[in-house]
C-alpha cells in the first residue's frame, strides 16, 4: 500500500528517469566501450578493462586525419553559415521587399528535404557545373548550405524579440547605421548568433549522408567510421566519440549560461508594464 502511494507520487520523476535512460544509454555504452580491450577486430563484446586506447587516442593516422578534416570543415562551415544566416535573418525581419514572405517559407525547405535527396542532387549539380573539384570545397559548400536554415531560424527568433527603440536611441545619440549595428544590435543578438554557430558546427561534424555523396576522395570523421565498420572498428573511434561528446556538452552549457545571463540583463522590471496609468482628471 505504502509502496503504491510512493510510486504514484513520484510517477513523473520515474517516467523522466526512464526516458533519460533510454536516450542516454547508447552514449554511455560508447563511453564504456572506449575502455574495452577487445580481442578481435570488432569492439562489440566486453572483454576487459583497459586505458591503453585513451593513452593513445590518436595512434591511427587515418582516423586522426579524418578527425582533423572534420574539425576544419565544421569550423569554416560555422563561420560561413553564421555570417550568411545572420544577414539573411536581418533582411527577413527588418526589411520589406518583394518575395519576403516566400523567402521566409523557403528557408526551411532544406531542413525538411531528405538528406539523401540533397546529397544526390548536389552531387549531380557539382558534376554538371564542373567548376569545383569534389573534395573539401564541395563539402564546405554543401555543409554551409544545409546549416544556413538553422542559423536563420535561431537568429530570426532573437531578432523578432528585439526592441527597435534601442536602435532608434543609438541613432538619436549620433550613431550611424554601422555603429548602431556594431554597438547595439550585434551585442544584443550575440547569444543567438553564438548558438547558431555552435549548432552549425555540430551539424557539420556529424553529417554523413550529404558528405558521402560530395566528398570525392576526402575522408571526414563520420565517413571514416562508416568505412572502418566494414573491416572492424578500432577502439579509438569510441575514445574520440566520447571526447567529441564531452566537448559538445561543455559548449552547450556555455551557450545556456550565456543566454541566461543575456536574458537577465535585458529583462525589464514587471512594475513598468503593470503600472501604466490611466488618465487622471484634475479635481
Amino acid at each position, binding site marked *: 500500500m505504502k509502496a503504491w502511494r510512493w510510486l504514484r507520487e513520484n510517477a513523473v520523476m520515474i517516467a523522466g528517469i526512464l526516458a533519460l535512460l533510454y536516450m542516454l544509454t547508447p552514449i554511455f555504452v560508447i563511453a564504456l566501450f572506449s575502455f574495452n580491450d577487445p580481442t578481435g577486430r570488432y569492439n562489440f563484446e566486453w572483454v576487459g578493462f583497459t586505458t591503453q586506447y585513451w593513452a593513445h587516442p590518436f595512434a591511427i593516422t587515418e582516423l586522426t586525419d579524418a578527425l582533423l578534416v572534420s574539425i576544419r570543415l565544421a569550423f569554416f562551415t560555422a563561420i560561413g553559415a553564421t555570417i550568411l544566416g545572420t544577414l539573411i535573418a536581418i533582411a527577413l525581419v527588418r526589411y520589406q521587399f518583394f518575395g519576403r514572405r516566400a523567402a521566409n517559407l523557403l528557408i526551411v525547405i532544406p531542413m525538411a528535404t531528405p538528406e539523401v535527396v540533397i546529397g544526390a542532387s548536389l552531387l549531380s549539380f557539382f558534376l554538371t557545373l564542373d567548376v569545383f573539384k569534389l573534395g573539401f570545397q564541395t563539402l564546405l559548400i554543401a555543409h554551409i548550405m544545409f546549416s544556413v536554415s538553422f542559423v536563420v531560424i535561431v537568429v530570426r527568433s532573437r531578432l523578432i524579440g528585439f*526592441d527597435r*527603440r*534601442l536602435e*532608434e*536611441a*543609438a*541613432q*538619436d*545619440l*549620433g*550613431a*550611424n547605421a554601422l*555603429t548602431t549595428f556594431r*554597438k*547595439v544590435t550585434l*551585442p*544584443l543578438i550575440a547569444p543567438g548568433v553564438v548558438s547558431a554557430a555552435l549548432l552549425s558546427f555540430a551539424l557539420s561534424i556529424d553529417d554523413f549522408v550529404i558528405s558521402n555523396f560530395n566528398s570525392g576522395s576526402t575522408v571526414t570523421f563520420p565517413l571514416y567510421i562508416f568505412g572502418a565498420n566494414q573491416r572492424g572498428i578500432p577502439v579509438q573511434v569510441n575514445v574520440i566519440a566520447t571526447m567529441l561528446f564531452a566537448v559538445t556538452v561543455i559548449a552547450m552549457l556555455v551557450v545556456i549560461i550565456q543566454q541566461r545571463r*543575456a536574458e*537577465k*540583463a*535585458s*529583462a*525589464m*522590471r514587471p*512594475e*513598468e*508594464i503593470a*503600472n*501604466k*496609468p490611466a*488618465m*487622471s*482628471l*484634475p*479635481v
Partner: protein
Amino acid sequence: MDLDIADGEFFTMLGPSGCGKTTTLRMIAGFEQPTTGKVLIDGTDVAGLPAYKRPTNTVFQSYALFPHMTLEENVGFGLKRKKVSKAEIKRRVADELERVGLSREAKRKPAQLSGGQQQRVALARALVNLPKVLLLDEPLGALDLKLRKGLQVQLKNIQRDVGITFVYVTHDQEEALTMSDRIAVMNAGHIEQCADPETVYDRPSTTFVAGFIGVSNLMPAVVKGSNEIEIADGPTVPSKDAGQFSTGEKCFAVVRPEKLTVSLPENAPGDQPGVDGIVESSLYLGTSTQMAIRVAEDVQMTVLVPNASEDARQHLPGGGAKVRLNWLPEHMHLVAESEADQPADDQTPTETVTEGVN
C-alpha cells in the same frame, strides 16, 4: 501644421492618443520624414537629415536604455560618437549622473534599476550631449502617480537649470499644465490651441480644448450682441467675448467647475448671472465635493465645491434638488465649436514645424 518653438522653452504637445503628437516629435527627431514641409532648427532645415545628424536627443517612453551597457556606458554613448576625449566623457558622464542622483549606480546595468531610476538615466543620457532640443515622448507615462509627481518637479527644475529647449509629449493634461511654458493642444493631426497653461485652461479656444483640459462644462448659446449672449433654454447673460463673434452666431459658454457656485434658488446671489438646474449626483473627493448638475436635457455641468467647512458641506443640496448655478461674468468664456467635431473636411497634410528660433 505650423508650430514655432522658442529657444529654451518648455513646450508641450498635448492630445489624445493618435492625435499626431508623437509623429510630430519623431519628425523633429528624424525617425520619420515629413512628406512635405520643413523642420527648422536654429534656422537650418533638418528635414531629410537622418536622426544621427540632428542636434536633437530623445527620451523615449520605454527609456530604450541599452541593456548590455552599464549606466556610465549608456550615458557616455552619445559623447563617444562625437569623438569627445575620454577624460571629458568621464567628467561629463559623472556630472550628469550626479545631477540625476545616480552616481552610486554608475557601474550597474539598467535591469538592476527601478523604473524611476531608469527614467532618470534616459534623461541623463540625452542631456549629457547638450542638444539644441530635447524631445521627451511621454517620459513619465510608465511610472506610478507618486513617482511621476516627484519627477515632474525634477524635470522642470533641470530644464530651468540647463536652459535647453524641451519638447514634451503627453496625454496627461495635468502634467502639461504643471510643467509647460506653452502647450499645444492637438487633435486629429492639427493644433487646436497653442498658448501658455493659464490661457489654455481658463480661456480654451475650442470645445475640444475645453473638454480635453479638465471637465467639459459647455453650455450652448447664441450671440445676442457685442456683449451679450443667450444661453439655450436659459437667460441672456453678459459676456465680454461676444464681440469676437457675429450676432446670431452659435457658440458655447465655458465656466470651469471651481468657478461655479451652487445654491438653492431662493438664496442665489441676484447680481450674478446664472442658470437653473437639478442636482444629479454628488461625489465626495476629500478636498472638495464634485456635483453634477443637469441644466438642460443634454447639458450637464460639473461643480467643484471646496470642502472648507464640514457644516457647509452637510448643507449642500442633495440629489434631485432644484438649484441655481452662478458665476462671475469674467469667469465665463465663449468658444467656437472644434473643427474635428464637425464632418471631416479634406485637409492637405502640409506640416511645417519650426523650431528653436531665437
